[in-house]
């Protein structure tokens, strides 16, 4: 029997295919296409302290083999989320990873406190790729100090053994440096990668196409960047589990991230093109792993790092 189980920090999952934060809402809309228990976990859209309208439209632009988005974290705020979305997901029997985002270190602390007693959550994904209003809108994950501060705030307030997965941006000179910093600050696992900062200019209006000017690039276009980031971080921190993401649209793509070092894989943009992408990817991945002679997913994690023998 093939063993598809995986873990991130102390959390165990039946299989390694998750949704990506912001690409599956809170699961409701996908539930009409498949059973959410089929997923390793539902990663919910990053939730903030207060309700947020998000950015003005246009919020998206298609790009070659990818897309740009600037949603601006639209959402109901943590209280309504805990009141409505979490109970619903629990009812479905889904494994839940809650993604949180803050505008200040204090936000992260409060969010963690609000979540510490909540039943039925498997892990916390801490999205630190968002602007820090206290530091000229600089993204937390862009500087070691702010990245550390945000994760420390969560660590101090979450208590118990809810694993913290720190989600990093690739838009830095050294992602390994940031990874080391957040692990030192208490992250149990890492989520790699968030979107890449990009821009599209509309040839007709001759202005940036998105109302927010810049946006996050996702989809197959960025997969080589994701694989590189995962490989580099796994090389430097082989014992820290990675939730990989970035352009995964097939089982082979997922396997690429796993061989690079990911213990689980989130699927984002591919769901927009195909609502059942996660299910297809999960099946294809299992077939690929078996075809390659693996007895378990775990054996394949980071396999691309093995020493070359008799070249």
């Amino acid at each position, binding site marked *: 029997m093939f063993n598809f189980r995986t873990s991130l920090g102390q959390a165990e999952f039946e299989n390694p295919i998750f949704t990506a934060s912001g690409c599956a809402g809170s699961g409701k809309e996908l539930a009409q296409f498949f059973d959410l228990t089929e997923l390793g976990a539902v990663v919910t859209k990053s939730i903030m302290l207060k309700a947020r309208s998000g950015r003005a439209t246009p919020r*998206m632009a298609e790009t070659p083999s990818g897309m740009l988005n600037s949603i601006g974290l639209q959402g109901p705020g943590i209280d309504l989320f805990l009141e409505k979305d979490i109970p619903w997901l629990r009812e479905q029997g889904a494994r839940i990873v809650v993604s949180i985002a803050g505008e200040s270190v204090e936000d992260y602390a409060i969010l963690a406190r609000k979540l510490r007693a909540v039943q039925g959550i498997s892990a916390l994904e801490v999205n630190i790729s968002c602007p820090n209003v206290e530091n000229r809108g600089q993204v937390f994950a862009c500087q070691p100090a702010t990245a550390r501060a945000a994760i420390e705030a969560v660590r101090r307030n979450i208590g118990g053994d809810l694993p913290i997965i720190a989600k990093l941006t690739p838009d830095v000179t050294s992602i390994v440096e940031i990874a080391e910093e957040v692990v030192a600050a208490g992250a149990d696992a890492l989520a790699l990668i968030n979107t890449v900062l990009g821009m599209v200019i509309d040839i007709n209006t001759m202005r940036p196409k998105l109302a927010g000017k810049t946006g996050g690039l996702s989809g197959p276009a960025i997969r080589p960047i994701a694989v590189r980031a995962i490989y580099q971080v796994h090389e430097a921190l082989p014992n820290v589990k990675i939730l990989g993401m970035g352009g995964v649209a097939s089982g082979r793509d997922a396997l690429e991230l796993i061989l690079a070092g990911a213990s689980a894989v989130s699927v984002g943009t591919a769901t*927009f093109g*195909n609502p059942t992408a996660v299910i297809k990817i999960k099946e294809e991945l299992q077939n690929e792993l078996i075809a390659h002679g693996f007895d378990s997913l775990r054996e394949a994690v980071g396999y691309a790092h093995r020493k070359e023998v008799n070249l």
Partner: protein
Amino acid sequence: MMGINKNASQVIAEIVSNKKVGAYHHMVFAVGELAKFAKPGNFVAIAVGGESSSMVLRRAFAIYRAFDRGTNGGLLEIVVAPHGAGSTWLTNQSVGFKVDLIAPLGTAFGIPTEPIRALLVGGGYGSAPLFGLSEVLKNRGCRVDMVLGASTAMKIYAPLDGKRSVSSLTITTEDGTTGITGKVTDVLPGIIETNQIDIIYSCGPMGMLEAINQIAAELGVVHQCAVEEAMACGIGVCMTCVLPIRGEDGEIRMLRSCIDGPVVDGSSVIWSSKRQIPEGTWGAN
């Protein structure tokens, strides 16, 4: 009117017909059972570009007509304007080619229970969903008038059999190549008054919908419109397709036009809010 369209499903659908009509392509797909769930106002989302396409997102098209003819016979029709790479690719596919299609998606036009007087207004390919609607309205005993507008004659989509169910059809073109020279909004007030219109149903470019809404508001006519916002997913998970809508509680929210639309109450939309969040919107700070 709001919420997930529980009837949506994903099928591999064969192209049964693909004909050029004026500036558009009228395309028919064999979709099986799901045809029976399609309501006027709903849309389909089709994957474009083939296997190794650089286009990762589906394209949305309003359903023109749907024929429920049992499991294997269900047909779904759309009208496509070859515009950019995605729609051009689609119109270039031949009969027999199979596409990945999700339908029916989104909200439908609300159908009155009384036999009222309806005016249907379409811009360009926006006329497509109106013919199915007029059929339904007529069957309910409504009087249906129709106004179609476009920049030029080639962009008026008004097939003969579609026109059967309307009592009057007025056409406007900006260049005067057919019908009255001008915009649909030039003729609306007159038609509304003459025919004592109770409700306007509209579909077309956002600017047109806004202008119609203003006339509807001024003349006190109910207005349901099918909006068209750029959509990444079409099924409610990406939050790209939002527009500001005032709810019954008075609160403005950024609602998803793929789930809470495309058909919305025109008076609830905060128009002219492109590139900015309207003041007072829920969660804006």
